[in-house]
């Protein structure tokens, strides 16, 4: 517990009136005024302590966060006891700090914690504290909490370029499959057109009916899912670019609700909404580390059993 700026000023003031009290002859009223102010300090110590006594905080999992963008997560204080003016601080190993404020607790009160824009990586909280200056703003009490949330920050997604992949290129994108280019998918319905999609995919009749552009949505089978080959045998900006491309493929698949297969050294996993969630892929990308040149390739691209088709 330590005094706030206001607390320091107030302490100086208290010292001054104690000095004045002794500099003047004893007067009952002066004693009463001094006692009131002094006791408001003494009780403030207890009340500030009591406001955070036994506090337990639940921080919601924000899921994978995108690099370079500020993020938020919900948090609440467990229990139904009323507490006022709580500030939650989450300090990460990297020195980044996220903070959130909660004016009062009790019942279903919930607030958000804001995280600054972070680079790609996995951030483990070094210290999670909740502090309060309630009730008088004279003292700050800070309590360390036994929770250590992890933030998975995946790289900023970039769009993968279909049909440009080669044997030694890191990413093998089958986005062209999305529109049934291989003739092996069936239309599954209509969905609003996404900015950047080719006009040839627009279902004009339905668009005219709805008044906004819609495109066909295709349902692909296991053999024709999107796949992304991530070769991690590189470093620096190339590695980050590959990760960004992979993140682009995953987020796009997540956005469309389609499956995406991510293949890398030691990893061959299909991510969907119903099975292994796309967020797991993003978490993998958040924590992915480059490999030395001598490592094996992630997959033999000429192996027909791999199911990966490179356009």
């Amino acid at each position, binding site marked *: 517990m330590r005094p706030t*700026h*206001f607390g320091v*000023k*107030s302490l100086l*003031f208290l010292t001054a*009136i104690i000095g*004045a009290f*002794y*500099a*003047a*002859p*004893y*007067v*009952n*009223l*002066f*004693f*009463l*005024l*001094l*006692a*009131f*102010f002094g*006791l*408001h300090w*003494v*009780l403030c110590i207890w*009340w500030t302590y009591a406001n955070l006594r036994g506090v337990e905080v639940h921080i919601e999992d924000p899921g994978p966060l995108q690099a370079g963008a500020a993020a938020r997560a919900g948090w609440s204080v467990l229990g*139904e006891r*009323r507490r*006022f*003016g709580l500030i939650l601080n989450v300090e990460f190993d990297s020195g980044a700090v996220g903070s*959130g*404020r*909660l*004016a*009062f607790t*009790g*019942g*279903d*009160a*919930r*607030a*958000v914690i*804001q995280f600054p824009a972070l680079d790609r990586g996995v951030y483990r909280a070094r210290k999670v504290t909740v502090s309060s*200056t*309630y*009730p*008088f*703003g004279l003292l700050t009490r800070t309590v360390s909490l036994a929770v250590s949330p992890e933030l998975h920050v995946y790289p900023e997604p970039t769009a993968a370029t279909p049909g440009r992949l080669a044997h030694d290129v890191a990413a093998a994108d089958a986005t062209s499959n999305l529109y049934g280019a291989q003739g092996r998918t069936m239309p599954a319905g209509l969905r609003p057109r996404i900015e950047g999609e080719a006009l040839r995919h627009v279902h004009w009749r339905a668009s005219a009916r709805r008044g906004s552009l819609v495109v066909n949505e295709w349902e692909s089978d296991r053999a024709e899912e999107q796949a992304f080959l991530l070769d991690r045998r590189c470093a620096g900006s190339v590695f980050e670019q590959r990760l960004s491309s992979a993140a682009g493929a995953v987020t796009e698949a997540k956005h469309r609700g389609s499956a995406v297969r991510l293949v890398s050294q030691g990893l061959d996993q299909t991510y969907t909404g119903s099975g292994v969630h796309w967020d797991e892929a993003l978490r993998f990308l958040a924590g992915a580390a480059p490999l030395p040149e001598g490592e094996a390739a992630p997959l033999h691209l000429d192996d027909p059993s791999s199911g990966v088709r490179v356009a």
Partner: protein
Amino acid sequence: MPEVKRKGPSALLLCMMGIVACNVRFVQLTGAADPLWLAPLYVVTLAAPFLLRFRESMVYRGVWNLAIVLFFLRLALHASTSELAFVLDDGLMLAILCQVHVLNNLRKEQRPDLLFLNSYLIAVITGYITVDLSFALTFAVYAPLFIVGLHLQHLEQFDPGHGVSALRSTVLRSTVLRALRRESLRRSAVLAGATLLAFFFFPRDFNRPALFSSYFDLDGDGSSYEVGFAQSLDFGGINREAAQSDRVVMRLEVLEGDPRSLPRFWRGATLSEPRRSGGWEARSEDLPASSLVRDPAWVSRWQGLRLARATDPKAWVRPGGEGRSRVHVTRAGGVEQRLFLPREAFAVELDPIHTEGELIVSSDGTAAYSNQGELRYEVQLGLEPREPAPRGLRPLEVEPFIQQPRSLFNQSARTLARELSRRMPDGASALQVTREFAAYLATRYSYRAPGAEGAARTLDEFLGTEAGGHCELFASTLATMLRSRNIPARVVSGYTLTPPPADERVLLIRSRHAHAWVEVFSGEEGGWFAVDPTPQLEGGGEDDGWMGGALAMLEERWAAVTRFDAGSRARFWQALRAFPRELIGRAESELGPLAGTAAAIGLLVLLVLRVKRRRLSPPATVEALNREFERLGVQLQPQETPREGFRRAGVGDVDPDQLAALRRAVEEHVRDRYASAGASGRVG
């Protein structure tokens, strides 16, 4: 969640307005500034919600800053011309102006730290100057505002502007404010209780001098003084303002006899020694500290009146007295050690609670108690003592009371006495001369309250001009005039009371009822008798109705606080220890021994049961909720929340009024239970 659209001033602003208004009131109570100066400050304080909208305007801020600078210049000018005599008054005005300035110029991002601390500083300084009940009542308003304000200031940083959505619902905000208000008021009560406990029990020296009193004279004479009992008079230059105080100094309870027959003059000290400066003081023989007055007998040597010592050292009785009435007196504590007694008192008995001090009776019949602080005593009143005429006055005994004041101020009085004596027949008795002089003064000179505008400042001014004067000037003039005619006289200082209605058995004597009159010795009258030459006296014992009675009681209680000392604390302890015994004793005397004990035990059991039941009984909101569900014939299922129950109840043909009542009950319950109405803020 909808954004809060605030209507009207925020709770914090209202709180700060209250604090600043209290500050202005504190300054007003000190009399440091004319109310005409303070009136605009009150107005500007109350107009803060309107004025704050201009706070970003340069012109607005410029005008405020200019006002402060101009006032500071005025203060400096005033200090240079009046030799710092009014520096405290001006300083207080500047402080309060700054408070109003801060209130009206506080920017959104600014914290009002200064306003809070400055407000308390003003309270402390003004509390040192004025100690009457008005200060206490104002502080009773100020203190909760201070505490609530600190809470609200704390909440302000969690406002919507700071990116927290917790308060963005209007319902939620009002719920938080309500909870906060309740918390802060509870804390105010706890703090007040703790302060009182510290006041009663914290060990301290009640007679502690100032830290540097041996180097500096910190007492000073002040720029004003309170009208009250004085142990000496000084007319060296009455250039200070006087404040009429309603502080209760004595409470008289008539135990026996007719209240209307109570004596008018209650003596505190006799002042027989003229001062060079034109005032009067007590003779060394009449001072309580002298060895003579420690004589345990209640003796008036001059009158030859001799009183026997009682067996009880706490009581003095004049033999042969015939009691007409009994009065119990409670004298407020303080610097006065004097007991106030009428000349008709023939027996005095201190309450048994006074165990530490010593009652000292002076040769002039006045009495003092060695300890300061509240004093309780019972007085038996009889006829005014009359002694047979002395066979002859011994010069040595007369001399002190016909001694002429050597002051220049008294020349006019002597001249006047000579002129009036010429109109009187030769050989007029002392009684005749006294009556003539007193009547002349009472009819020819007007009464002006001390410090009133146009009131005389000196004895010469009083006699030589049309300026009226107060009782001390009348009494001094008469005593000087009588002495100039060789009639023994002395000034007496004490309190007067106006006879109350017959059914009023409790009388309050206030500070402003202090009075000075003259006692004249006359062989024909059998000793000393009192004469009051003052034509008009302040009222006393007036009937103020129930409001006045309540205020008087508060004043009495407040006086007990401001005059609290070691003796008071000892009595408080004693009363605290004796309380249970007294309670049981009273119950036994009223109900009989067994019944009394049984009643006490029964009360205790009832109290325990009540506390237990309160703990076990559900909150009122839960009871209301159950009642509304029952009315609709809906039974809450296990694990079902009231909201879910409400939704279920709304299905089908339901009376809309009953449904609305249930909704209100659910909302109240949610608020009470969780201090919030949920994310949506409403049940629907």
